[in-house]
């Protein structure tokens, strides 16, 4: 247990809708989410858009206040922060890489001023000279060298890949223990994605950080992680060791996700996938299992009760009554 750095227990996040017509209506963006993250581990959180994966990261990062449940860092319950100091202490340990490298860097600031913020906020540099050295180190670390060439530039002068490298440098600046990477490569060109993924894997080893790697790409999750959690409509449906979840997907949704992924080695598949419908509204999520409206195997019970997470061995858990 002492190897666990972060743990979520039954965490939910509901967003209130605005407008008079919507009083007391909420979006169930994240419901009963429980998982743990080990020290130095990379856990992939996989799901389609609207599945709640970014909400999960944002709640962990402290950007949204959770509605219920507990989040533990090093065994201590955290959030909401009681003092600014507590917030700073937490945020120094937990950092987030954002999806959009074009929107997440202030276009009117130079790379220097973007990158020195974490050092200044967390008072990490003793002198200007030390700060300068730290800035250069962090840029060189993400492959932007010589660093001096980049410090005076503006974000628009960099390519998407370079911008995402700046984002990653900023994230690592405070020597965090946990990185929440929210689809860090989805907006980059295919030829440079793998370079960014490799860099994150290298940094994870070198800096001994734990990764929560959020993606919609099952194959990318396999490349990046040792365990996978699959989310659907705000709930985790299956979690377990990466190879086991992918090779022996148990939950019908995970099977569907797997069958939908491009598989160039297999050629055109003749068998149609049993996909029907799309992700349901999270304002009125389906009763019972949230996937039952699309599930080809759904029985009566599936619409009546929310299945609990069941242990099927080897650290593999599934939220399906039919298993």
């Amino acid at each position, binding site marked *: 247990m002492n190897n666990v750095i972060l743990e979520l227990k039954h965490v939910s996040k509901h967003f209130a809708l605005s407008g008079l017509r919507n009083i007391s209506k909420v979006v169930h963006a994240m419901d009963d989410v429980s998982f743990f993250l080990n020290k130095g581990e990379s856990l992939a959180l996989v799901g*389609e*858009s609207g599945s709640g994966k970014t909400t999960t990261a944002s709640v962990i990062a402290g950007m949204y206040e959770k509605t219920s449940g507990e989040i533990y860092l090093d065994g201590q319950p955290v959030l909401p922060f009681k003092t600014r100091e507590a917030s700073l202490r937490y945020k120094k340990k937990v950092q987030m890489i954002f999806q959009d490298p074009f929107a997440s860097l202030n276009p009117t600031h130079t790379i220097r001023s973007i990158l020195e913020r974490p050092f200044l906020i967390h008072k990490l540099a003793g002198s200007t000279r030390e700060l300068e050295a730290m800035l250069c180190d962090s840029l060189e670390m993400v492959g932007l060298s010589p660093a001096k060439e980049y410090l005076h530039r503006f974000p628009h002068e960099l*390519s998407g*890949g370079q911008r995402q490298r700046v984002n990653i440098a900023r994230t690592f600046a405070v020597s965090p223990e946990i990185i929440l990477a929210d689809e860090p490569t989805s907006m980059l*060109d*295919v*030829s*440079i*994605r*793998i*370079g960014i*993924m*490799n860099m994150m894997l290298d940094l994870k080893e070198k800096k001994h950080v734990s990764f929560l790697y959020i993606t*919609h*790409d*099952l*194959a*990318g999750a*396999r*490349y990046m992680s040792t365990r996978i959690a699959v989310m659907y409509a705000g709930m985790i449906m299956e979690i377990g060791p990466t190879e086991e979840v*992918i090779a022996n997907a148990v939950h019908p949704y995970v099977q*569907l*996700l*797997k*069958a*939908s*992924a*491009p*598989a*160039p*080695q*297999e*050629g*055109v*598949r003749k068998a*149609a*996938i049993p*996909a029907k419908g*799309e*992700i349901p509204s999270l304002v009125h999520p389906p009763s019972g299992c949230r996937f039952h409206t699309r599930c080809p195997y759904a029985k009566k019970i599936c619409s009546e009760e929310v299945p609990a997470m069941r242990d099927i061995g080897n650290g593999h858990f599934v939220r399906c009554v039919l298993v």
Partner: protein
Amino acid sequence: MHADAILELRNLKAGYATNAGFVRAVDDVSLTLHRGEFLGIAGESGCGKSTLAYSIMRLLRDNARIESGSIIFDGTDITSLDEKAMNEYRWTRMAMVFQSAMNALNPVLSVEEQLVDAVLAHKQVTRADAKKTAMEMLELVDINAERIASYPHQLSGGMRQRVMIAMALLLKPDLLIMDEPTTALDVVVQRSILQKIEELRHIFGFSVIFITHDLSLLVEISDSLAIMYAGKICEYGPSREVYASPDHPYTKGLMNAFPTLTGPISRMGGIEGQAPSLLSPPPGCRFAPRCNVAIDACTKEVPLLQVTSPGRLCACRLCGGNHE
């Protein structure tokens, strides 16, 4: 022209006038598309693949133009047609599914008005008949015909993209051009739309040009594959063959750039650097600055697209092709 060719591009050059100069986004592209064929064009953003699509449809923006070369559609060179003559082809013979269905549909018009408009603009039929055609087509893309009264915001992303496909197929064109039709969609929805296109292709027998940056997807669904880099086609061939044994170093890099769901997990390489600016492309082979096997000569001479084996073309002096 091949007997069964529906479209042939010959040395097509097209580009944009910008403040910084002329950007030739499509540079000397030649391609043949056969009837019923599914051609995939893969390339990264800025490689000219969308410009190529808009050139074929003659839908380039005001600051863009076709410089030279020909686009031969079913025996007629359409590059020189005036707007009126072009309208005989556009949508009736060739239609397009645009990248973002969210933006391509008019938000203040119902699906009915938009579909019926498309029919009436090109065909002498009554409004009632046009609506009937539209409703039949909606059913074919798995949308309940009653949804024809819906407005775009009442439909999900996947349904809007299906409406776009229905609109493109209304007049039963011979050629369907799809510009990243599934990029904004989730994988499950993407898969069901691809299945639908395959199904409709077997019903109507149209040819497809499918443009995407997702090579893994293309390899799976297309008959033949053209890889574009910096405005030029660098490799062409049957998809399965190109996937199994890519010739061009760029294709090899791309094939090694996406993780897979099966097989051993090994460290992948990807491609160093970034695509060049088309304002001032590098001399010689445009991929040379990023190529890990480039030799001096690569930066001096432009490699031509040459036959490497039957049905396969490659523009690289290191894989058997000649050069200028």
